[in-house]
């Protein structure tokens, strides 16, 4: 599925957050949205997923306007993983992932839904948590469960809002590896808001740099993550070295 964002503008209380964002996202790629705090990364993700309603602009799915789809049909095309999930009430892991089947089911859960949920749990390697309660789990496990819920939707685009920001380094890598595996095995696309430039560099096919409510630059990590761009977007002097695979590794030195 090809996703096109055209001239998207969003703001509230007279304050503009996104100003004329246009993007093309091909099928089966990992795209990272990077930029300083307040650049509009999360907002853009929410606008694409229709959680927020943009004042202007259109999102096209394979050339068709996303706004024309019913909310149920739309939710079959895109899955959303929030930055953090807080469950006020007790749910088991299985029940939470089963919620991802909501767009597909009426009142009754079919054997197929149960199969998809358990397959998703296995794919994520969290099968043994099925009967555990969500609040008993660690931050990394919770993140995987939120991802599993979005996957159970069987979306063609996965939207992740800072998926690694609260995780330790091992869980960061695990989560990113899962995204990578998903994109290559299921040919879906992943769009992530990312703070960690080095993870973005290692795992993305394409990087979208946001600055002052607009798209600053788009391209592959090698061409985008250079000291000049980082200084202009973040206001930080940074040294960019190459890792063993030739991908840029950013070492921030000092604020300008």
């Amino acid at each position, binding site marked *: 599925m090809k996703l096109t964002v055209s001239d998207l503008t969003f703001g509230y209380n007279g304050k503009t957050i996104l100003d004329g964002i246009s993007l093309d996202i091909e099928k089966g790629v990992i795209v990272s949205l990077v930029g300083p705090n307040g650049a509009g990364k999360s907002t853009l993700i*929410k606008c694409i*997923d*229709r*959680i927020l309603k943009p004042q202007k602009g259109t999102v096209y799915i394979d050339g068709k306007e996303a706004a024309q789809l*019913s*909310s*149920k*049909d*739309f*939710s*079959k095309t*895109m*899955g*959303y993983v*929030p930055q953090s*999930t*807080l*469950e*006020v*009430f*007790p*749910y*088991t892991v*299985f*029940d*939470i992932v*089963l*919620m*991802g089947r*909501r*767009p597909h*089911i009426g*009142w009754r859960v079919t054997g197929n839904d*149960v*199969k998809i*949920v*358990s397959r998703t*749990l*296995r794919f994520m390697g969290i*099968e*043994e948590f*099925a*009967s555990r*309660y969500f*609040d*008993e789990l660690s931050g990394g496990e919770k993140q995987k469960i*939120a991802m599993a*819920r*979005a996957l159970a*939707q069987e979306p063609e685009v996965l*939207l992740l809002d800072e998926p690694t920001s609260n995780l330790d380094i091992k869980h960061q890598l695990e989560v990113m590896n899962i995204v990578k595996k998903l994109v290559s095995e299921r040919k879906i696309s992943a769009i992530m808001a990312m703070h960690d430039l080095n993870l973005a560099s290692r795992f993305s096919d394409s990087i979208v740099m946001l600055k002052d409510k607009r798209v600053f630059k788009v391209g592959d990590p090698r061409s985008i993550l250079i000291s000049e761009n980082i200084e202009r977007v973040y206001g930080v002097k940074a040294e960019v070295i190459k890792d063993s695979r030739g991908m840029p590794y950013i070492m921030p030195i000092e604020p300008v």
Partner: protein
Amino acid sequence: MTEDEVFDAEEVYARASWKKTLFTLVLFVAVALLAVFAVSMGAASLGMGECFRVVLAEFMPVEEVSTFAQVVVLQLRLPRILMAIITGISLGVAGAVMQGVLRNPLVSPYTLGLSSGAACGAAIAIVLGVGLLGTGRYIIVINAFFFSLLTMAVVYGISRIKGTSVETLILAGVAMGYLFSAVISLLKYTSGHEELREVVFWLMGGLYTARWENVIVLIPAVFFLTALLMRYSWDLNAMSAGEEVAVSLGINVNRVRVTCLTLSTILTASVIAFTGVIGFIGLVSPHVCRLLIGNDHRYLIPCSGLVGALLLLVSDTACRTMISPTEIPVGILTSFIGVPFFLYLLVRKKRRWWQ
């Protein structure tokens, strides 16, 4: 347990679902058995056998029963028991739905000001003799009902001004509750002896006014509203993960919220208009069920209703038999019986999800 069983998620889910279904059935049977038992309990000493014959005689004109037994069982006890069950169901269901839709464990028809609104409407009818609609015997009921609905409309309206924030809605409900309490206090302060007594009784709640003519209307209404609310189980489940996730799962959060709040308000208002203020059940029944079977609304809603029915039926039976022929207001006993039970569950269960 073999390793295979532990890691087979489908098996785990099937087992959990079966447990929850069983729990629902056990509650259902418990309510039915307790109802049968309650029929034979009361100031007039009638055996269980005799009570059965009275009920049977209604359908098959073969048995000889005394008119006294007939009046006691058919006109006094049965409608009251049925009223206890449907009131308990309504409060339990409404509590579960309201807590779910607002994602807050402290919410209940009581905390949202609905009970105070109803009480205020009733007090106005009792003390001032003024009603919104109708006259005569139902003026109190109708006033209580509409004041309750009005409260929710105002509370929701206030929250809409600030973009339907859940916190605003709950706080507005609590604030309205205080306002209504103040009006009630004022009415009590200025009312005469006879009216004051009646207001106090209404505020304590009771099922002694139960009549067939009301019960017959309320039973289908309560079941219809409960069934409607249960259709939103999935939406409520998804909404408990937060508004954004719910939207991305294709749910129209605002519409679900308005519909569920409206339906559960009508559900609550239609019973408390008859019974007066019965607090605690709406708050605690959902929690009792959550501690035992978790929060899946497909099971939580019916179970919470049944636990409410159980709690209210036990309390009401106790309060009309403990010091018979007089009785204790049921509101007092629901708290006496329910609070220790709830605290026991709270302390005993290791899971601490409410933090």
